[in-house]
Structures are given as structure tokens and as C-alpha cells.
């Protein structure tokens, strides 16, 4: 059996999974400085233990409406790429799942193209669907594949 470990998290109501090896850490973003003129999906920059992290808004990336009110429980998934730190802001962090890679199914053909571009496929769990997210793709600038290519 070809097992993979996935960290699960929620953006909006959807549950996503990302490969454990891709994720550097999970942190609570605080004191985020918004950057005027930057792309809408960039939530801002913040200081994480002396490093400057560029934070991305997961909802904006997926075309979801912004969170109605900030409950102070916002979390971010930290990723390191090319000596730079990035953060993906999510709504909720879940458990770590061990899943059989062979049971990964292809994206449904009618999936929203934006979602399809960041999804590696779907796992059918007992009571829900788990979309496996390609974090690199998620953080790549639209149209450019710098980060994905580097990975």
C-alpha cells in the first residue's frame, strides 16, 4: 500500500489536504502589514521569528468571499521556497491523515478551472471529499510557474 501523509485544513467550507513534506510549519499570523498595490490574493507581510513572511489569502486565491468577521483564530500554513518564506492563510486546521495514494481520483472535469489548477486530485473520505492541494501551484503568480518550476 502506497501511503501518504496529508495535513488537512479548511478554507471556507471545503476541506483540503496538503502533503506533510511540503509544509514547513503552521503559525498564527499576527500584526500583518497589508501591502498597497500588491495582488489581491496577497494578504500582506508579517514578521515570523525575525523572518519576513509573505502571506496569501486562501479565500481570495480560491475566489471565495472574505471571512465575515475575524474570530482571531486565523491560521497560516508556512512554506519555504527558494530561501523565501510564504504563508497561506486558512480558516481551520484539521488532523493529519494517512491515505493510500492509489485511491486518489482525478479532478472532476467540471471543476472550477481555478480550483482545478491547484488541485492534484480528490480523495473520497467517509463523509466528505478531500481536495489535495498543490501548494506550490497555489502560491505561484497567476500565469507564471516560478515557484512550481523551482520545486
Amino acid at each position, binding site marked *: 500500500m502506497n501511503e501518504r501523509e496529508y495535513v488537512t485544513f479548511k478554507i471556507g467550507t471545503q476541506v483540503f489536504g496538503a502533503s506533510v513534506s511540503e509544509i514547513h510549519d503552521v503559525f498564527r499570523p499576527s500584526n500583518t502589514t497589508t501591502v498597497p498595490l500588491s495582488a489581491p490574493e496577497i494578504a500582506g507581510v508579517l514578521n515570523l521569528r525575525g523572518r*519576513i513572511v509573505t502571506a496569501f489569502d486562501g479565500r481570495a486565491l480560491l475566489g471565495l468571499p472574505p471571512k465575515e468577521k475575524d474570530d482571531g483564530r486565523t491560521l497560516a500554513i508556512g512554506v519555504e521556497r527558494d530561501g523565501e518564506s510564504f504563508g497561506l492563510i486558512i480558516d481551520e486546521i484539521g488532523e493529519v491523515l494517512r491515505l493510500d495514494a492509489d485511491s486518489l481520483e482525478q479532478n472532476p472535469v467540471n471543476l472550477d478551472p481555478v480550483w482545478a489548477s491547484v488541485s492534484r486530485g480528490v480523495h473520497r473520505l467517509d463523509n466528505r471529499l478531500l481536495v489535495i492541494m498543490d501548494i506550490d501551484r497555489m502560491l505561484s503568480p497567476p500565469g507564471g510557474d516560478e515557484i512550481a518550476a523551482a520545486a
Partner: protein
Amino acid sequence: MGVKMDDLLREFLTETADSLEVIDTELVRFESDPDDKDTLNNIFRLVHTIKGTCGFLGLPRLEAVAHAGETLLGLFRDGTLKVTPEAVTLVLDSIDRIKALLNHLSNEQVEPEGNDRDIISRLEAHAEGGLNAAAAAPRAPAAPPPVAPVSSEPDFSEDPELAQAAGVTTGRWDPDQQRYLRPGEVSMAELEAAFLATEGPAEIKNAKPAEAEEAEGKKGAISTNATIRVNVDVLENLMTMVSELVLTRNQLMQMLRTVADSEFKAPLQRLSGITGELQECVMKTRMQPIGSAWKKLPRIVRDACQDLHKKIELVMDGEATELDRQVLDLIKDPLTHMIRNSCDHGVESPEDRIAAGKPETGTIKLRAYHEGGHIIIEVSDDGQGLKTERIRQKAVEKGIVDPLEAHVMTDAQVHRLVFAPGFSTAAQVTNMSGRGVGMDVVKTNVELIGGTIDLRSRRGEGTTFSIKIPLTLAIISALIIGVGEHRFALPQLSVLELVRAGPQCEQKIEFIKNTRVLRLRNRLLPLVSLEGILGLSMDGSEPRADELAYIVVMQVGDTRFGLIVDQVFDTEEIVVKPLSKRLGSVAQYSGATILGDGAVIMILDPGGVAKSISNLETTMRRVNQEEASRSSNDYVAGEKTTLLLFSAGGEEPRACPLNLVTRLEDLDASTFEMTQRGPVVQYRGRLMPLVHAAGTHALRSEGRQSILVFSQGESVIGLAVDAILDIVEDNLTIQLSDMSQGVLGTAVLKGKSTEIIDISYYLTQADQGWAEAAAQGERKAKRQRILLVDSHPFFRNMLAPLVNAAGYDVVVAESLEDAQTKLARGNVFDAVLADTDHPSKMDQFQAIVAQGGNGPVIPLSSRSEAPSTVLGPAVPKSDRYALLAALDSALRSRGEAA
């Protein structure tokens, strides 16, 4: 990564590379002063060391080349051979070969295949040839090498027997090299002896270390005491960590500031102090004297001299000035390019220099010094200066500026066009500097490290480029500013000053249409709000007249503007962190930093901010124009005229040259009397006719009336105006027009279109007999004829009526050529008034004038401090008294002579 390089070899390579750089510099110095034994000894010693080490490491090719070079140097040293530029070129060539070999060595760890027979035989041939010449000359060298001079010799030296058999046993056998010596060559043992005899580093003679250091110091070399080589990466790492430490310290300090009394206070204070010192020390490890970036330059200048057949001396000043090695690396290439540029385009050929009355040898001066956290590097030459017209023409041809724009640009602005992308000034592309990269690349490179570049040039006297760069890139001084909720860091380098503007302040924000401007010390500063640039304003940045704001006056390149911000916090030393790739496309930021309170803020890129002000470009251009004309006056011989600004019959300012006005008066209008010939006033015991610049009807009948008084001889007239506005000194550029009588044309003064009035029109209007009356006293039986030559229409129009009014007949010529035509028609003039715009042509012109039996040529100058010309001191055009006096005395002496 391949085989790890042998430690010994690597050390050899680093040391040799350093030595070779020194040799380049020393050799060039040596060439210019062959009598300098110290320099020669230095070179000799260095080559010897290289040779010795090569032998030790088993590098035969290197050793052979070094040996041949050393032999030649040895002959220089004991005076057997004269130092010639060819000989030095040869030695430099051999050094180049050594470099090439070393290069291969450092890449491949083995010497390349092949041999260096070519360069070695050239060196040997030179040694022989020079020796033959020396032997031919009847002089006994101090230590003659024991050789028999032979003109040519087949290469038998590798085999003594063969050589003997051929009967050419000309040289002696050298047991060290296992071959016969060439004529002029010395044996290894002899070289060694010579080396030991050479006064070298004191350790050889086991002198005291103190003396050794002193000796080193005297030679001006960079001190070699107790240094170790540290990998640059280690230093970089150290720097990063210290930066983090500084940030953490700042955070702690910030936290503690809110706590009234804490036991952490004392230890934290100590930590803070130590951190500061540590930071300073680490910064110091990154500092290097700028001289290390200059080492290659003397060689470059020398080679350029050879290639271009010029004579140039490179003078360097401030080699010890230190700056961050990262910055140092980044300016090496721009500097090299600038030096090449100066050699190629700046300094003229020796013939041209002599023709221009300059010393044959040109000088390029390289200067570095510190100025408040920055380092200034200047490259100046005493060459021909920039060819303003050619640049203008070329810029138009290349489409860099449109013709109209180019026409109104000041010289200084035109000069700056050499920094424009795609501009190369050389009419003829040489292999030196015309390789597609121009000053624009230099500018880009300098700006990349947060520096600025500027130039000053004066035709015939030279050009100076100056670069201002920060000492270090890792930590910069920045002004923290706020807009709404946001804070930003603005590099202090581009900040000129801070101004507070508002209803209660001295400065107010004003509007030209929707553009905000600030009147700052009599100049208009275009304003832009940071809010607007960053797209933060909600209502499209609706301008408010009574805004209370801080204005950061900034300068980016030649652009000066004010940035409106809500708050100004503090100046902080910030650690620059690179911008995330995902934010790289936003031109307004150059990086990010973490503040003492832990917050991340963006560092604004002054260049990017300046670029985003597109709608203000026109305003800025005008402001720049004014500024440029101001600054250009320092070195551009412009026609600067002092003008009196006044208003008459409207709001628009009018102007006339101040020098024409005798006095300004403010008279009681009720004393004006009406006569048949017009209004008059009793003025200083006599009647003064009056005329109003807007027509006589505009003359007041009560209250005070401003009058400009003009006087000529005994008579005076008054020109009434509504109000006297100002006196300005400016480069007068008149656009002539025929729109109305009494107006010469219009000029832009202080950014406003201003009518320049024709004084003579009003003067004759005031009193038709004025002109004649003026000349009454000295009226001659026959009116004398004067030829007036001036290419400037304004002066022609101003001077002709003036001279005419003084009782002379005036013929006007637009140019010297035009004047010659007029002279050729058989006209004889009693005097010629000529503008000295073309001093070089004056001699010839004078001869033509003299031939025709004309009167003397009186040189005129548009400058108020009249320069001397070939024809004696020039008379300033604006000084009518001096002019008429000069004319009078010239005519008188002509009369006497006749």
C-alpha cells in the same frame, strides 16, 4: 563539485592574483617615472616571488614566462636597458599571459597544454635588442652582464653541444636551467644574487618588525600586518545574524519602554551596547578601501593611451576611503567604464590639446571621499567637455527627445542626456567604449545600489562625473512615514528636507488645475500624495486647499518633487530585506524591513515613486528646467541678463533689461502736467517727458505713479508702469514676434510668459526729438557710420536704436559672414561693434575690417563681467554707458590718428 583544490595551490593563486594587480599599477607608475628605483624594485621582487613559487609548485610554463619577464626587468634595474613604452607593454603582455595561465590553473588545477615560446622570445629579443643598442652607445653600465653581443642566433640554447658544434657558444652555460644563456640573459644564480641585493621587505634582512612596517607604510602600500583570509560567505552569514540580533535588541527595547521599572533594564542596556559594537565590528569586516577597486585602472588608462595615441595621467586621491565590499564589487565595472569613457571621449589627442593651449598630457582625476554616510566618487578630466550641440542633435535623431523639447533644454539638461538609454556619444565607435553599453548602463548600475550620478561639463575645460553611493547596502538610514494606517520607510538618501504645509504654516499647498504644487523658496515644487500613488485614497484624492500635511521633499536623479504624507515618525537605521518575488512587480517598493516594534514595513523605492508621477511630468520638467538653468550658470557661459519685471495695463508681467534703466521713481501723480507734446513732470529741476507703457491714457492723475527713468546725456524721460514686480536674473531666451509695437518678443521668466518691451519705441514716443536731443551735444558735422554685428536678435534690436539715438548711423549685421558681405560692398565704417561669440574667428575678422580702411573693432560681450578678448577687453552689451564711452573713445582716437 569536482576535485577539491589543493590548499597550497589555492593560496598561491589568491596571493599571485593580488601581486599581479599591484604589478599592473606599479608598472604604469614606473613607466612614467623610470628613475624611481623603489617602484622598480617592488616590481622586480613581485615577479621574482611569483617565479620562485611557481618553481616550488612545479608549474613550468608560469615559471618560464616569469623568468623571461624578470630578466628584462633586471636589465631595467641595473640601468643596462632603457625603459621604453614598448618594453613596458611587453612586460605587461607577459603579465597578461601569466594571468591567463593562472586563470586556467584555477579552473582546471593544471597548467594548460602548449608553451609560451612566442612571448618569451619577444621578451628575450627585446632584452637582446636593447642590450645591443646599449652596448653600441659608449657607456659603461654599473654592472655589465658578461655577455658578448650578437645580432642573431639560432635556438641552440637547449643543447650546449649542438650549440658548441655550430660555433655559436655566445652565452655562458647556466647550470640551473641546463642551457646556455642568451645574450643579455643572466643566470639564475645571478638573478638570485640581484634579488637579494634588491632592497626588499625588511624581513629578508631580519630587521625589526617596527621598521618593516614603517618601510611598508612609506611606500603607501596597504598595510599587511596580521591579516587572515576569511571566506566571504562566513562574513555574510555573520552579517545576517548580527542584523537579526539588532532587530531582536530593538524589539526588547521597545517592550521595555512601556514598563516603568524593570530588573531587565540594566542588563538590556548592556546587551544593547554590545550589540551596537558588534554590529559596527561586523560592518567593519565588510569594509574595504576603495583603492582595491582602482588597482586595475592605471593599466586601463595606460593601454588606452597606447591604443588611442593620447597622453593621459591618472591621478588618484582617497584610495583609503572605505566602503562595503558588496558596494565595492558593484561599482567596479561602472568605474572602469567611466575611466575608459574619459580616456576615449574626454581627453583630446596631444595635437588637439596643444592647439587648444593645454598641456600635452591630459589628466584624469579619480577622487573618493566620505560625505555623511555616503561615499562620493568623482571622475574628472581636463578634456574637451561635452559637445552640447552634437548631443542635442543625436538625442533628437535617436528619438530620445523631440526636437521642440531639445530646443528649449538647457545645456546641463542636454548633458544629462548621455545617461539616456541607447545613447552613445562617440561619433566614431572605438573598441574602447563604444560597445553598445553606454553611460545609461553605468547610471542603471549606480542606481541599482541606491546611488545617484550626475555630471558637470564645461566646453573646452573638461567633464566631471560624480557618483554618490551609500557605504553599505545592508543597513540604511530611513525616514519612517505614515499614510493612514500604513507605515513606510523612505531611504534618507533621496530625502532633501521636510516641510509642513497647512493653513497655519508658512507654506501652503496650491493648485494649478488639479495638480498640487508647493511654493518653496521661490520655486514651484510639484507635489504628489503617497496616498494617491499607492491607491489608498477612497475618494480619488480630491484635492483640498487647506490641507495640513507633511511634505517630504525628495530628489531622484534630476527630478525633484514633494511627497505628501500624513505623518512623519522617525529616522531609523533599518536592515534591508529583499522583496518577495511575489511583490517584485510593484515598482514602488525596493524591499521590506522589520521595525523595532516587530512590524514589517515596506521600503519605498524613490525611483519607483518618481516614475509613478506621470501626470506631473510637465510641471516637473519646467521646475527642472529652472533648476538646471540655475545650476548650469555655474559652468555654462550663458547670456545672463538682469531684467526688471513690471506690470502695465494687465496682469501679465513685462520686462526690460535693468541696465537700461537709470532710476526707479515713485512720483506723485498730481504733479504731472499736460503739454502739447504730451505729459511731463518736473524732475530734478527739469522737465521730464512721460509715457505709459500701456498707453498715455493709463497714466494716473492722482496717487503715486511708478516711473522708470531713462537718461541719455542731459535729457531724461520717464516710462510709467502700473507696478514694479521683481528683478530677475536669467538666461534670456526671447521668442521674437511682431505682435505689437513696443514689444521685442516674449520670454519665459520665472515660469511665466513675459513680454520684453522695446525701450527705444517708448523713448521716441515720449519725445520725438529725444534721440536728436540726446546727441545734440556731441553731434558731428557728418554722422559717423557704425557697423553692429550681433547674432542675437534681442541685442541687435536693443543696441541699434541705442547707438542710433546717440547720433550715429547704424548698419546691422547678423553674423560675421554677413558683416563681411557688407564690408565688401565698399562701405567704410568708422567703427565696428562686434559680438565675441566666436572668439576664434575674431582675428581673421579684424584683418578684413582693417584692410578696408575701416575703424577699430570694439568687442562686445553679453556677460556683465566682460572677458578679455584678442582685441582687448570686451564691452558688456548691457552697459550702455560703457558702450557709448568705448565707441566715443575709439572714434576719437581714430580721428586723431587721421
